[in-house]
């Protein structure tokens, strides 16, 4: 290749790199603006043209956490944490053995079973919402965080089974057989042989299940009230304008999104695999 061609190519490469940076910054701009606004006073947050250089304050955060009166977000944050963490643990508890039976020691027609799990994910939530609501009402389980735990477990189980079967399939069979010859039983094999090899994948699966549970709105909105309200339901309180409240909205949105951002960046490498139900590696 001539040196001119190389120079043209590299100059165009720099241009495309700049374009990528521009796109990245453009997509990030709303989040950056949200973060900046959350540290402005309400008066500075609601100006036109926008006040980029206004002085910074924690008033929005104090407001959101209900320091000067108003509803405290803590019960909602705690409910969300319970629903997300417990349902994720339940998912792991159910999905790990299932994935084992679909990858390591396979049942007959294991692909059919896998695709059954996937098809449940394609059933829209609204299709079962009414019977679940009626059931909860009759069983006295409305506004009960444990009902959400059950539903979030079912929402995430198919994703987890798919992801984990693809991670467990990477465990060499010879190692498992050796353990079996040594007389190890299933729980021991799972805990001592399979789990350590598949651990990074299991961790990513858990983070993705956590994100989906934390984000969920429809079930939580319909099935909870004052007691079991989750963080997204708390956020719906900001749908109608309440005068000057931009800094507070930004602080609330940012604080409630932080766990998802953290979990998402932690699982970044396996995010595609999880979101595409294991179809893309």
């Amino acid at each position, binding site marked *: 290749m001539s040196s001119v061609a190389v120079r043209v190519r590299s100059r165009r*490469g720099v241009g*495309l*790199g700049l374009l*990528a*940076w521009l796109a990245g910054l453009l*997509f*990030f701009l*709303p989040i950056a*603006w949200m973060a900046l*606004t959350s540290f402005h006073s309400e008066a500075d947050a609601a100006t036109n*043209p*926008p006040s980029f250089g206004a002085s910074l304050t924690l008033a929005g955060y104090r407001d959101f956490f209900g320091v000067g009166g108003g509803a405290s977000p803590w019960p909602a944050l705690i409910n969300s944490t319970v629903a997300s963490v417990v349902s994720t643990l339940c998912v792991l508890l*159910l*999905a790990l*053995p*299932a994935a084992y039976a679909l990858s*390591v020691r396979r049942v007959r027609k294991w692909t059919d079973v896998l695709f*059954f*799990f*996937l*098809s449940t994910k*394609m*059933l*829209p939530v609204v*299709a*079962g919402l*009414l*019977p679940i609501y009626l059931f909860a009402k009759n069983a006295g389980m409305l506004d009960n965080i444990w009902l959400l735990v059950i539903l979030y477990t079912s929402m995430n*189980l198919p994703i987890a089974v798919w992801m984990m079967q693809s991670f467990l*399939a*990477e*465990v*060499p*069979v*010879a190692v498992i*057989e050796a353990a079996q010859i040594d007389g190890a039983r*299933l729980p021991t094999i799972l805990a001592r042989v399979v789990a350590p090899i598949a651990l990074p994948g299991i961790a990513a699966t858990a983070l993705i299940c956590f994100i989906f549970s*934390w*984000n969920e*709105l*429809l079930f939580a909105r319909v099935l909870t009230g004052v007691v079991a309200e989750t963080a*997204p339901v708390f*956020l*719906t309180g900001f749908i109608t304008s309440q005068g000057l409240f*931009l800094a507070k*909205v930004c602080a609330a*949105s940012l604080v409630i999104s932080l766990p*998802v*951002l953290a*979990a*998402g*960046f932690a699982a*970044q490498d396996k*995010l*595609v695999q999880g*979101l*595409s139900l*294991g*179809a*893309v590696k």
Partner: protein
Amino acid sequence: MIATTTAPVATAPVRTAHRPSARLRAWATRAPLLPALIFMIAVTQLPFVATLVISFFHWNALYPKARRFTGLDNYRQVLTDPALRHSVWTTVLLTAAVVLVSLVVGLALALLLDRPFRGRGLVRTLLIAPFLVVPVAAALLWKHVLYNPEYGLFNGLLHYLGGPQPDWISNTPLLAVEASLVWQWTPFMMLILLAGLQSRDHQQIEAARVDGASDWQIFRHLTLPHLRRYLELGALLGSIYIVQNFDAVFTLTSGGLGTANLPYTVYQSFYQAHENGLASAAGVLVVIGSIVIATFALRVVSSLFREEVSRA
């Protein structure tokens, strides 16, 4: 990696003195699967069966005594009600627009990110961030912080340009919802397509380049055919999630201004109007729509899946 597990499983080397019957062993193999399977059937399939049954009844929760079997009457009503028909159309428009636009933008971003440049990891992180904002929070951000006609960022920036000060949500409600969803879903498409780009055969591309193929020719004849399955997968998974979208419609417009999609309509008809029978019929229709999409989605996933199994 999968090949190691496919073949030798059947020939278990363990031979105990009193060999358990084949049937018992089959159940032992199945046992770890059963809790998950039974749980899924109980929590997802039974409610749907109940929805199907309720959809054949006239049933308003406020007048429970008047409950009676009406056959297909609810379906007739759902399909002839102009508001509901409109929500079917809105669902189609919303889903198609968001999926197509985010797919095209996602492809452009994936192509930009596929090349090495300074700070690539950081740019990738910046691009993923919108997908990792809680959907309700993202919708609030667009509604109050960006779209607000008096002090939103869009009109604030337009102010510098001396442009008009439109009321975004009132003027173009559906477009407003779509734009916020495109912002959140483009990173998803980008991630899938980037994975597709990175699984290309780089020797083949190098060979084509040596043979004098232009960048466009390589993209058109090598990259695009390779990406086809990833594009399909992105489109179908995106459709499945966006057909079900509730958060953005609920938050940005509360289903007003002609933006009520089917999930919102189902929510409204039983949560606010207490029309259980009608809501169920609409729910069943959403399912039928999803099954059409899902059939294609399952086919694409399964072909990628089989390719994976056979390649390993």
